[in-house]
């Protein structure tokens, strides 16, 4: 009996660690993305950028493995039956944020967009905002698992930063289409900016769902 209890607690602790590590991956990918775009703006498709892209890909790969492990364990051990569907959806949503960071970083690598010098600071600002958005989403999600009374605080931050990122991307697109660069370049940069800004939108959608899950989690 004692052994069964120890084993149950060990399994529980292992799953808790996996969930924590999964959240760490979101923060890792957001920080790495921010750094990668700064390198890209400075050096274009340099070796350093390739290395950072590879790092993002690895994080995405690790996150996928963790997601699968978490989902399998939740189902196979029949854990949290009342909230399992919500937790699985939350994990999927978080994974989609990580995937989007990877896709956008790769898009920069493939398309090699040429941002004129005057847009660099705004682009860095936008990347900063989407990264902050994803990080706060991860913190809110982590709070859902441990201290759900604080989920609302972090969610509010996500909403605020997302609207800031909308403003930043809007202003950038406006400035680009007001400039003299060829239309093809304008469309390419506008597309890339939209893709980056979309990360914050996805985080916002996740938070919307998370707040509903939090209401259900309250006993």
């Amino acid at each position, binding site marked *: 009996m004692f052994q069964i209890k120890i084993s149950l607690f060990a399994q529980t602790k292992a799953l808790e660690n996996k969930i924590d590590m999964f959240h760490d991956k979101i923060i890792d990918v957001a920080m790495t993305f921010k750094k990668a775009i700064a390198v890209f703006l400075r050096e274009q498709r340099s070796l350093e950028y390739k290395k950072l892209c590879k790092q993002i890909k690895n994080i995405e790969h690790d996150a996928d493995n963790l997601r699968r492990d978490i989902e399998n364990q939740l189902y196979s051990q029949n854990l949290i039956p009342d909230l399992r569907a919500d937790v699985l959806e939350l994990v999927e949503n978080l994974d989609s944020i990580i995937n989007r960071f990877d896709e956008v970083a790769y898009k920069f690598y493939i398309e090699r967009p040429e941002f004129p010098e005057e847009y660099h600071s705004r682009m860095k600002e936008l990347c900063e905002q989407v990264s902050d958005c994803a990080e706060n989403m991860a913190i809110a999600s982590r709070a859902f698992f441990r201290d759900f*009374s604080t989920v609302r605080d972090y969610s509010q931050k996500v909403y605020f930063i997302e609207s800031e990122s909308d403003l930043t991307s809007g202003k950038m697109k406006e400035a680009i289409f007001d400039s003299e660069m060829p239309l093809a370049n304008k469309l390419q940069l506008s597309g890339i900016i939209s893709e980056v800004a979309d990360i914050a939108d996805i985080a916002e959608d996740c938070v919307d769902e998370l707040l509903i899950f939090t209401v259900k989690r309250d006993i």
Partner: protein
Amino acid sequence: MDLSYFIFLSSGLFLGWSLGANDAANVFGTAVGTKMLRFKTAATIASICIILGAVFGGSGTSRTLVELGSVNELAGAFMVALSAALAVYWMVNNGTPVSTTQAIVGSIVGWNFYSNHHTDTTILAKIVSTWIICPVLSGIIAICIYLIIKQYIKHSQMHIIHQDLYTRLGLIAACAFGAYALGANNIANVMGVFVDAAPFHEVTIGYMKLSGTQILFFIGGLAISSGVFTYSQKIIKTIGNDVMSMSPIIAWIVVVAQSLVLFLFASESIKNFLEGYNIPSLPLVPVSSSQAVIGAVIGIGIAKGGRGIRWSLLSKVSLGWITTPIVSALICFIFLFVLENVFNLIVYH
């Protein structure tokens, strides 16, 4: 040993079976319904604990039922138990949550009327008062536990997965305790009327001595367990989420509140302890686990601000509480007449 005793006892066993099917679902129905425990696990734990509760804690409540109406002929006892079982079966088939306690009390009063035996109104009032005290007390206990647990979860920052594990272990413990309390409290409903005529002698197994009554209660416990395994799963599907949707933690609170109430109404040691210090104690009366569950669920609903309670269903449940003893008394009265005049059996002396 007289074989006719076992033939007459069959109605008690039938009542035991229906109690197992109906009331045991109250003990672990919420745990199985919320998918926190597998039916087989819960049913096995419950069956063992029901038998233990019946054998080692069931004497107090039986005495109260005997005081209400000392059914002094075996054929009469047979009909009292059968009427209660038929009333329970009929009400369950109508989809009304039903109390075995109310059914047996109704039957005994029906026997008293038929046999012109005086019904002790003080005892009857004591029993009927518990039909109100039981759900109210269960509700109050549930509110207290709910508020404590809510605060604990808020401040402990326990991980959701860890919380799930504790809830699961808590549910297993609560189910065991609830089943023990159910066995101790409700065995009187099933076997109480057969105690006087029990032909069993004291048996010694190792260091343990079992009296004739305890052997009778053991048989009753087996009948309840058979009800748990054969029919309670169907009832579990409707318990809990009918009145209010439940999370596993709420399910745990409901089981604990209900078990405590059943235990308080069955425990002679607690009664003696309280009386030793001149503190008013609860009477040792078989109470309804259905009423205790509903009281706990309403209590939590009130603690949550009254949202989510289906009051319309509760009025149906309350109606069942009034009709059960009346229906049971009527069935008993009519069938005692049939037994005496058609089968020429002595149903009282």
